[in-house]
Structure formats: C-alpha cells, structure tokens
C-alpha cells in the first residue's frame, strides 16, 4: 500500500474511532435516565431540574467521549451527587424540611453537610488517579454538582452554593494532598 493510501486509511480509521466513542457515550447516557427521573421528581423548580439534567447529559456524553480520567470521573461524580440529592429528599420526606425558605438554616446545613460528604467521595477517588487526579477532580465535581443541585434547590441558590462549597472544600485538599497512587 502506498504511503498516501495508508495515510488516508489512517484518517478514516481515526474518524471511525471517534465515531465509535461518541456512539458509546450516547449509549452509556441511557444509564442516567433513572437519575434524571429522581432529579425531576425531587425538585420543586422544574426549570432548574430541566437545565441541570440537560447539562448533566451533555457533560457526561462529552466526558465519556473524551475518555481517560474525564470519562472515569462520570460514574463517581453521579454517585457523589446522589448524596446531596438523596439527603435533601430524605429530609423532605421525613418532614425535617418545610416549604422553601421556612427553615432556611436547616436546609443550608443539610446541603453543606451533604456537599462535604460528596466531596469526601470525590476526593478519595481522585487521590487514586495518579497524575490524572486534577482532571478527575474537576470532572467528578461538575457532575456531582449537576446531580445534587435540584435537591439543594430546597434552600434556593444559597443551598446550591453551600453544597458546592462543601464539596470543593473537602474534595480538593483530599485529592491534592494525597500522594499519587498508581492506578
């Protein structure tokens, strides 16, 4: 085979590879449907859960397509995000949270604490990623915030910011201080 033909074949193979990755990313996105259902069901502000859910799907597909630490971060990110979502949902079901803003302090405490727990999970997993831990930390953090945001909307924007702060304050030092562990 001539070098030019070989180059053309390599380019076609590269396109096939990217196409295959994208197709797989969309297929994996189907696993997010139950999470999206919980997000929509648990949030009183439908627009917020809609925007958050759409961004989650877009981010997850993009990260899965990109692969490496970015792709590996999606599942732990979703798992971590379910902590604040589940915590606020459980608190609401158990009656500890009243209608929006009537128990602002309690809502905020739940959001910050749940965000901290999510940060613990993300930071712990990021520390295991070796040299890729920064990209893993950011990707998992973004996914966790997108999943947890509709739950923390009970406390308004402050709840979401509180969760974000809790997550960042716990996960970042944990991930960056740990010595890199080979995967």
């Amino acid at each position, binding site marked *: 085979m001539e070098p030019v033909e070989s180059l053309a*074949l390599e380019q076609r*193979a590269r396109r*096939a590879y990217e196409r295959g990755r994208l197709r797989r990313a969309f297929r994996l996105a189907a696993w997010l449907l139950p999470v999206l259902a919980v997000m929509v069901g648990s949030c009183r502000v439908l627009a917020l859960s809609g925007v958050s859910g759409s961004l989650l799907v877009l981010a997850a597909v993009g990260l899965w397509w990109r*692969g*490496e630490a970015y792709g590996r971060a999606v599942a732990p990110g979703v798992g971590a995000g379910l902590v604040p979502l589940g915590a606020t949902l459980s608190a609401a079901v158990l009656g500890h949270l009243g209608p929006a803003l009537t128990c602002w302090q309690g809502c905020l405490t739940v959001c910050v604490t749940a965000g901290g727990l999510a940060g613990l999970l993300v930071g712990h997993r990021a520390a295991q990623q070796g040299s890729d831990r920064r990209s893993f930390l950011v990707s998992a953090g973004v996914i966790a915030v997108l999943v947890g945001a509709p739950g923390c909307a009970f406390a308004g924007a402050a709840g979401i910011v509180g969760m974000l702060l809790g997550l960042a304050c716990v996960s970042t030092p944990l991930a960056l201080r740990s010595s890199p562990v080979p995967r």
Partner: protein
Amino acid sequence: MDAAQRRELQRAMTRLADGDRSAFHPVFILAWPVVRAFAYSLLREGGDAEDAAQQALLRSFERASRFDQTRDALAWLLGITAYECRTLRRRRGRQREEPLSAIFDREAGAPSPEALLVKEDLQRAAREVLASLAPSDIETIVAALADDPPGRPHVITAAAFRKRLERARRRLRSAWGAKHGTC
C-alpha cells in the same frame, strides 16, 4: 508479529480503549500489517482481501472503546477480521448465484421466465394441432411461414398457392377449435 510487538499492541490497545489518542498511531502501525496478512490468507482474491482488511481495520477502531483489556488484543483484532472476511465471502457467494447479466437482461426488457414458459406451451400446442393436419396442408403452412418470399413451391402458381393456403388455414383453425375450444 513477535512477542514484544504483541505486548506493545496489547498496551497500546488498552490505552486507546481508555481514550488515550496518542496510542492511536502505534495501534494502527502494529495492527494494519497483521490484519491485512490475515485477510489475504483467508481470501485468495487480492481485491476482496484488501476490501475485507480495510473494513476489518475500520470496524476494529470503531469498536476500540469497547475493547476489554483482559482479552488478548491480537486475538480480538483477528476475530473481527475473520468475521469481515466471512461476511464478504458470503456476500460474494450470493452475488454469484444470479449473474449480473441476467439481472441486466431482465431490466432491459427481456422476457421473464413466466413469459418464456407460456410461449413454450403455445408452441407445443400449435405443433400438436399442426401434426393432426394432412401432409399437404402442413407443407403449405410451413412454406407460407418460411422466410423465402413469396414462400410457395415454384411448381404451382401464386393463385393456386393462395387457395391451397386458405384451405390449410381453415382446417388448422377447425383442428385448433376441436382441440382447445377456441381460435
């Protein structure tokens, strides 16, 4: 492919499956000669082997993100190549069952097999009826159908031949009517 190259292919394929784009070129360089040689060994015809090898390579890269790193990369690649070769051979076999000229003839307005069968039946029936006539009538009809104008024996006049043909036709018509009930 020696053992070192095989290990290198395994490592590069694992990285590529994870999304490491820098592993693409090494996989291409290592995989293409093996896939091509294997396709040529399975398919004798050069053109078919080249087609199957390229198709197999593209399919392998398309599925690279689904490659399970616990499997042997070389065996995985050759498995896809064998499948592509089998598919191509089956497709070629189906094409050989009906030659292209037959399809083109039919499309160009040539009679269909059903029309040919009807024509054959009619010719057989006509031969049977003709055989029931007197030899002089058969001779007259055959002479009229012959290509040689005016299609009559040279020993009789044209008027006598026309009269004889008229009588032969009448007998033929009545014989056909007696056998098949219609003219």
